[in-house]
């Protein structure tokens, strides 16, 4: 079932959803499950967990249906619920001791100057991402980030949540989100740099 646009603008649709109309929910499940599965797969590495998270997201959405006011797109509303379901699963899972991010951060001399020399990457992001191999490389690099940082980068940069939304979902302060996001990007830069330095001419 390919993701299709929802008839959210059709009269009565939001009311049907809020009333728990089975047909409205069936349409949601049929049109949105694939997209939501892609979303939770990015957060969870295990396919069974990802499928469970999508199922749990629809159950949560059904239970919270009265809170949907039609101001946001229903796809956005479901997206947030699915991200939250995936995060809850991630939290419930046994945490392994996390690698430190320090080794992936920039290094400085005592006078505050960079230890390393940098050269701007020549290739714009859209050109680089037109190659499947580069997309795969970057996705793998994101997976290598320590969990705390990977999650924040996914929520903010990939899923497009606001700083406050991410803070609320993760149960941390907005300022902590900013710090983690910054370190996550610095670390990701280091992980992907070899790929782009090779491409620089």
């Amino acid at each position: 079932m390919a993701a299709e646009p929802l008839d959210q603008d059709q009269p009565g649709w939001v009311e049907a959803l809020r009333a728990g109309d089975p047909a409205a929910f069936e349409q949601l499940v049929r049109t949105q499950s694939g997209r939501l599965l892609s979303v939770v797969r990015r957060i969870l590495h295990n396919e069974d967990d990802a499928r469970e998270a999508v199922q749990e997201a629809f159950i949560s959405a059904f239970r919270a249906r009265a809170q949907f006011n039609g101001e946001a797109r229903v796809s956005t509303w479901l997206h947030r619920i699915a991200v939250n379901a995936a995060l809850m699963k991630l939290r419930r899972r046994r945490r392994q001791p996390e690698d430190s991010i320090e080794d992936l951060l920039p290094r400085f001399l005592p006078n505050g100057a960079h230890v390393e020399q940098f050269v701007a990457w020549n290739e714009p992001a859209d050109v680089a991402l037109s190659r499947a191999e580069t997309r795969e490389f970057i996705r793998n690099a994101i997976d290598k980030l320590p969990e705390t940082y990977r999650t924040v980068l996914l929520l903010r940069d990939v899923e497009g949540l606001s700083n406050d939304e991410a803070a609320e979902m993760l149960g941390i302060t907005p300022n902590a989100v900013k710090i983690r996001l910054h370190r996550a990007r610095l670390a990701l830069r280091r992980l992907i740099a070899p790929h782009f330095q090779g491409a620089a001419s």
Partner: protein
Amino acid sequence: MTCREVSEFLRAYVMDELGADLRVTFDAHIAECSNCRAYLQQYQETRELGVRVFAQTDATADAPHELVDAILRSLATLER
């Protein structure tokens, strides 16, 4: 401002959250330091790559039929 401080302010800079005074000293450092200019460019591109690297996966996403059926079954039990 040192390269280390520039690195710490990169996020605020690209999000346009730097105060006016900091922005002036940040820009002054960037204007003189080619290494920090290159680092800033790499940081911005890293962010953009993160934002766009999954962009194509969602549009074509299909859910397995058994998942769709399982969700519909579990919703049906809630409706009762």
